[in-house]
């Protein structure tokens, strides 16, 4: 039995990437195993932990719950695409370093995606809005406290930059 290969093409972190996948290949497997973008992590493969979160046309999605073929013609941003064009850390990434918003780093890429999506939609979130926005991303190291602090700090810094 040979599985049929499908050609796909998607804009990943600003670059068009093309490939051949079997239908059952998940989006996260395509990113990790085919494109070697191993910053996106696999935690539960049933859509609960959020470690595999990526931006899909600007919205956060669970890449373990999507097929790679569904990304055909769409825009995907992973943690590797969050830095500034000059390679510097984004305000959010830098804020995570400032408050030590991580320990083992495994949930961090998904947490950054969820936080970036929040800040894109709501530049001045309350603490409760921050907690709600990351409540679909499980972290076992931090108890979330320094993550909430990092996101609030990033919002404050971005607000200062904008004024």
């Amino acid at each position: 039995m040979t599985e049929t290969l499908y050609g796909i093409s998607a804009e990943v972190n600003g670059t068009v990437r093309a490939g051949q996948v079997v239908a059952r290949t998940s989006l996260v497997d395509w990113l990790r195993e085919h494109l070697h973008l191993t910053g996106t992590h696999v935690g539960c493969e049933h859509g609960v932990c959020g470690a595999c979160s990526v931006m899909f046309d600007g919205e956060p999605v669970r890449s373990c719950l999507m097929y790679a073929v569904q990304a055909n013609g769409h825009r995907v941003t992973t943690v590797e695409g969050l830095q500034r064009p000059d390679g510097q850390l984004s305000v959010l990434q830098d804020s995570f370093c400032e408050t030590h918003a991580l320990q083992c780093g495994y949930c961090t890429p998904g947490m950054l995606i969820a936080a970036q999506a929040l800040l894109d939609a709501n530049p001045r979130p309350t603490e409760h809005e921050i907690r709600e926005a990351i409540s679909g991303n499980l972290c076992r190291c931090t108890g979330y406290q320094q993550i909430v602090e990092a996101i609030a700090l990033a919002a404050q810094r971005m607000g200062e930059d904008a004024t």
Partner: protein
Amino acid sequence: MGHAASPSGFRYIGAKRRTKEDPRFVTGRGRYAADVALPGLKHVALVASPHASARIVSIRTDAARALRGIHYVLTGEEFCATTDSLPIGVDAPKVRRWSLAHERVRYAGEWVAAVVADSRALAEDAAELVEVEYEPLPPILDPEQAMVDGSPLVHPAYGSNVILHRNFVWGPVDDQFAAADHQLEFRAVWSRSATVPIETFAVVGQWNPGTEILDIWASIQMPKFPDQTANALRLPGNAVRVHYDIDVGGSYGVKRGLKHTVLVGYLAKRLGMPVRLVEDRLENMRGGDMHGPDRLFDMKVAFDRDGTIRALKIRAVDNVGAYAGRAPFQLGKPVSAICGPYLIPAIAYEPVAVLTNKTPQEAVRGFGQAPTNFALERTMDRVAQFLNMDRVALRKTNLIRKEQFPYTIPSGSTYDSGDYHTVLDKALAAIDYPALQRRRDAARQAGRLAGIGIATCLEPSGGNSAFEPLLNSKNQTTTWMDSCLVRVDLSGSITGIMGTSSSGQGHETLVSTVIGEILERDPMDIRVVHADSLNALPSNSPVGSRMAIMLGGAAAGAARKIKDALIAIAAHNFECAKEDIAYRDGNASLKGVPEKVLTWGQLVEIAHRKFHAMPPDIEPGLQAKFVWEVPTGGGLPTPDGRIQIYPCYAFEAHIVYVEIDPATAAPTIKQYICGHDCGVMINPDIVHGMTYGGIAHGIGAALYEKFTYDDNGQLTSGTFMDYLIPSALEVPPIRIVDHCTPSPLTTFGQKGSGEAGYLGAPAAVANAVNDALALLGVELNELPLSHLAIFETLCKTTLNKRAPNKRPT
């Protein structure tokens, strides 16, 4: 930003400083075991037992082997004949265990066969075609039933389900019980949960027939892992090379995938192909062998009417599951703090470990101390309730006082230092305890169920395995060293080399901070690398909250040797005594003659290039290692079972306020404060982070998390939909109040804190829920105090109230 002055007279230690590790993680550049991509990599899928107990009648693999892209199907028959069984901690050699079951399965999810294929998907396809015929046997799941004669035996060759049973009596327990004004007894139950890291266990193995070395990349946190892998594979220790530069995606004790690694190592060598095994979530939850304690406590306490606790009798029965490993030792570590932070002069302790047809356990954060603290703190609250005494006052009556340190407890461990009353007072002041009481009382008057929980607990730290000889007289392990190598290269750059992997504890920050402190060089310029097991110095890995003490101490010791060498070089060149050299910022000058100086660069150049300018007793090239034993370690237990276990004892005082919605029974944590004293903090952000995380984990154990089984022994909480890890909405904002009582035993006064928070949070939350339920005259002593458990309790009490003779008007 990111740096602020150290408050304690240190240059770098204790200051707000960014970590060395965070930048690679926020950019997606961590390198975890599942990220290791090797040419020709093959993938493993597992065939798991659907039965909790069964005889394997036959295994047919023809259909699986016939699939395209399948390289091998391995069963227990071949594997058990060609590898050795995995080590067991207690004295029960007939409880044997391999990566794959042979002839019999002992829990649902146990691995029966492994398939190797070109992709994980193909391997899973083939795994479904492996046909296993089973003859189901009745499972035994309850530990008390399992102890009864005639119950099904999990390991018939062993002849009993009881794998450990001891009776320790420290002090005049019966006399104290006879003399006490009062006695109480009750049962407390700690249900089976675990640390459940977001990364499952992953391992990649590659055999090189040219060098005859098996390379292993694994998400590992485990002492003696390379040796035990080699032993099981019947290889010499120097044929297994474990790469410790792999980032581990969380562990908190459980990442000990020895059975995974032996299996992958065997397949990689057998097939001559690199092989990878990554658990999926169900495999992790059901067959990853990473569950934690599953323990019931029968507590008896003797006390006087003024609140003085005279004695305790503790019987702890742990359901360790189908195989043993090191897990039964989790009944041993609590001996190091068996009376908690209290002056209790006499204690009887009866630990029992029982085999059942549940998933085997592994080391979980605190190694049995958190359940014990939960039982102790429920005891304190029950005594206070019995005496109608304030819970804070009761604790203050019994807490060891500052002037009593060092203090030796009945079971033989000496607590190094502490100031428990002050830490508790600071926590009470920070939360404004009278105001908190008013808030609770107002909520109650408004018809809500509200409660305050208090827990004052110890964190033994400095990971020492002295409980091994205590619980197994054939095991005389007393060495529990760690080490560090410091190099200064010709460019003057400093590198610290450590011999274990990290799972989020910030060891690179720890080592660089300590080396920078001693050598007076900027830690941000100091690189720290993780060696592999063939070129590493000995380590016992970051277990038992040991690395700030042990790795920090080793890095300091090695850096001091470097500093001594630099001073000796300067003294030799200035033709003066070493005592006449002033060392500052890495430069060495003649005291009183500041212009007579050898700079860091010049000293390094002499050490590397100018042998003619070197003192005769200093080795050329600048590198130094330091290996040391745990402070106070090295002793064997006395005949009556007294032993110094861990060296350092940190203290935590939790105060938590909970409200329970009377309509839905949902508990909500409204306020949380933790007074914490772990001595000198090397990096406060790291210590606070681990403490916040430990509290969140403890909230999970107290309210949400449980590996539940049905009557057939099937795990019914194998996904994150039913095994509930707290999210950012369940974990409240937490305030930590620091206090610092330095340890006299460590290099800088530091204590360990990797298990901080978790050791007291379950007790505090349970006490808060029970304070709320006390209004209804009910009590819950079985964790987790789940929404459902509270709901059922409320329904019962409501029904009682509605009984005809009690019908409200």
